[in-house]
């Protein structure tokens, strides 16, 4: 029984590890960008595209949170703009809504005038580095109420979850496999202790 569980765990560790390796590699590479990249390779915004006859209703300005995002989605579709709405800024006096929309590698700013039914759409490329950092940070802790309002963000959230849960499983199954190796126990315990001291020592020093 014990041998069968051990063998099953070893196979799961192997196959799940192989399946997850591209995701872990992607996250690992993006860490270097997150930690070290300073210069942005963002292009200058392009010329604004002016669109008239946009089907908008004044009530859109009164909505909040996800309701407002849902109300705006058909408008963005009409304008040919796709991606994650990062936030919505309302300029009440001018009956305007400013909506930044992001897909990794591209930012679009939609300036919507609810009174005149016009929109100014400005797009700019933000590049691969920004895309890497964006994906690593998303969905993130900000604007939780509306985050995940695009298909790609929901898709990404799912895969980031799979990577995180998968990695947690790999660590646990790895510990189980290591415990089975009597010859490696002493060195393993020493490294585990060293890792714990480094980790808790660093966390304590950084946060106190």
């Amino acid at each position, binding site marked *: 029984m014990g041998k069968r569980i051990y063998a099953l765990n070893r196979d799961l560790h192997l*196959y799940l590890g192989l399946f997850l390796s591209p995701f872990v590699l992607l996250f690992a590479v993006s860490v270097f960008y997150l930690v070290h990249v300073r210069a942005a390779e963002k292009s200058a915004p392009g010329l604004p595209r002016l669109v008239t006859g946009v089907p908008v209703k004044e009530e859109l300005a009164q909505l909040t949170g996800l309701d407002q995002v849902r109300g705006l989605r058909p408008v963005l579709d009409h304008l040919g703009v796709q991606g994650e709405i990062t936030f919505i800024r309302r300029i009440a006096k001018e009956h305007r809504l400013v909506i930044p929309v992001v897909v990794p590698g591209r930012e679009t700013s939609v300036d919507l005038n609810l009174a005149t039914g016009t929109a100014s759409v400005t797009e700019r490329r933000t590049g691969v580095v920004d895309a890497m950092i964006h994906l690593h940070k998303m969905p993130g802790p900000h604007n939780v109420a509306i985050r995940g309002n695009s298909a790609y963000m929901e898709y990404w959230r799912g895969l980031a979850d799979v990577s995180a*849960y998968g990695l947690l499983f790999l660590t646990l199954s790895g510990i189980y496999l290591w415990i089975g190796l009597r010859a490696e126990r002493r060195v393993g315990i020493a490294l585990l202790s060293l890792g*714990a001291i480094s980790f808790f020592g660093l966390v304590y020093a950084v946060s106190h």
Partner: protein
Amino acid sequence: MPSRIEYTFKIWNRKGHYYLGLYFLFFLWLFSFTGLLLNHGSWRFAEFWPNRKMSSTTSQIELPQAGTALDRARDAMRQLGISGEIEWTAAKPGSTLFEFRVNRPGHNFAVSLDPAQGRAVVEHTEINAWGVMRVLHAFTGVRAGDARNERDWIMTKLWAFSMDAVAAGMMLMIASGLYLWWGLRSKRVLGAIALALGSTVCGLLLAGVRWIS
């Protein structure tokens, strides 16, 4: 018949796979778990912002006049007894105040110095352990596209180094894992299917989110 070098490499590759995993275990748990927390901001049990503690103190200090902005900020921080990563904020138009933030996981200090009156106002925000964990996930002290802020605190540098080390360790573990798998002839076909499936899903995702656009 494998050569002696190949045999030694095989042994140490295997050992290295275990050793790296064991050494980085707590870091991996932190980054995986906080990855989940960042992915699910609506999880109530891990709320930290509504439970934050805020306080404000005013004190008289000797404001340094000479040196760079960083030198002056460090001098003021020493007098105020605070430490952390300095974050420069946008100066308010027409203001004579010398303002900056000091961040470290769990604590944020908004410092406002009035050189004319020698007065320092410090607004302190403290968050709970869930918040500390989330901040640790991306505590780098710098941001892409923000040339003004540098990593200026030794602990931020150390933490950023540890993030690099974990990422490099993960890459080494992937490489050693691939080598270990390739040595298992009976597992090659199923392993290749798992690897191809993972690569395809990952590739489709990247194409799907217009990475390559």
